[in-house]
């Protein structure tokens, strides 16, 4: 492997990995995708991310970069000329980072609660999950993308969860589209781009994966 090669250690259902796939695709960067078995982590993964031992890990010039939000910003800075993901204005950048951070703080954990819990706990998670999506809809406003006319940082950070929406809906017995139609319209718009549709797995596959996890963890 040459030093200029880009390698991504990833796991196909991971929304965090999908963010990096989208960013690399937007920049038209060729890379080697390595699927990790999280029950049997490779020596390379453990060496490149000794602190967290988690995917995704981006390796470029032999050096690892960890944490998906950091990776997306890094990709944007290394290859600035094609499809910029963050805006140039400092205030707009701060707003984009804020919402990217909001997605990170809220969506994964709430989504997880929706498919792993039942009863009151699940209802509370669903409610908060929808509230967060509505806040994001507010931020999107009438723009085509969070990034404006083009797909940007927040789009790349949030849209991976769209591949998990069907699983959340089935497990939580609710319709995200009914509550947040604008957001679903936005997600479908993103999916029209190759960089997104080729980076996200099929919703049915994610649902099957969730059912498998529920069995493994003994969740009804």
């Amino acid at each position, binding site marked *: 492997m040459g030093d200029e090669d880009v390698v991504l250690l990833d796991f196909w259902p991971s929304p965090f990995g999908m963010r990096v796939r989208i960013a690399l695709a937007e920049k038209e960067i060729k890379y080697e995708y390595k699927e990790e078995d999280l029950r049997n982590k490779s020596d390379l993964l453990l060496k490149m991310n000794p602190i967290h031992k988690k995917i995704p890990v981006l390796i470029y010039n032999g*050096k690892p970069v960890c*944490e998906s939000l950091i990776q997306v910003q890094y990709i944007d800075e290394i290859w600035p000329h094609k499809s910029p993901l963050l805006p140039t204005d*400092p*205030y707009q*950048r701060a707003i984009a*980072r804020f919402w990217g951070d909001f997605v990170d703080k809220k969506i994964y954990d709430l989504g997880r609660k929706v498919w792993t819990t039942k009863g009151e706990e699940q209802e509370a998670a669903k409610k908060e999950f929808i509230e967060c999506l509505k806040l994001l809809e507010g931020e999107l406003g009438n723009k085509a993308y969070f990034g404006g006319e083009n797909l940007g940082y927040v789009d790349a950070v949030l849209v991976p969860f769209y591949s998990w929406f069907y699983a959340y809906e089935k497990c939580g017995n609710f319709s995200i589209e009914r509550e947040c139609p604008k957001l679903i319209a936005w997600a479908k718009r993103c999916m029209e781009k190759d960089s997104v549709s080729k980076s996200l797995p099929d919703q049915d596959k994610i649902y099957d994966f969730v059912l498998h996890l529920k069995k493994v963890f003994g969740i009804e």
Partner: protein
Amino acid sequence: MATNEVKVLGSWPSPYAMRPRIALNLKSLTYEYIEEKLWEGKSELLLQSNPVYKKIPVLIHGDNKPICESLIIVQYIDEAWSSGPSILPSDPCERAVARFWAAYLDDKWFPAVKSIGVAKGEEAKKAAIAQVEEGLALMEEAYDKCSKGKGYFGGDEVGYLDIAFGSFLGWLRVTEKFNAMKLLDEGKTPGLVKWADRFCSHAAVKDVMPDTDKLAEFGKFVIAKIRAAGAAAEMH
């Protein structure tokens, strides 16, 4: 308010609120500091400028630009006033490293520090202390690599990771005091011990770093509140 005025909403015991102030000081910028007495209720200005989290710090630039989340504010300050000394490293790889460690400190390390104070039982306390010490060993290594023989993580001058980590020194010292132990230790983390002194006496830092004794008093008040809330929850 004029279009270029800067306000910072903060709270003196908060490590997060220190960060924007250090960054503004590094850029030699004047700003209005507004102390939020959070235990007395949140001001209208805070609720309006941070409706999502309702938390400090918030930086308000001019009439209509509120920025929230301490590390995002520091990056904003660096980018909006790009003619001043740089806070983030210029190399993208070094930037990624600085961001990685800042995120680690916020997400993993400082929560472990806080948990020492409220740990239930000796085992839990020991585990928390071990996690904090492990983190300090990692930071010592990171300091060696990032500083390249200079005085700060940022090299010659205080940078992003110095600010992110240094803002926790007050509470680290309080934890050492409450538990009669040394976490930053000349034997184990000699680089960090010297760095900590250097950081705390830096002109951009010394007036915003709270006094350890004052912070300790406040700490007792907070721990008592947490314990009371825990006891009340257990009673239901």
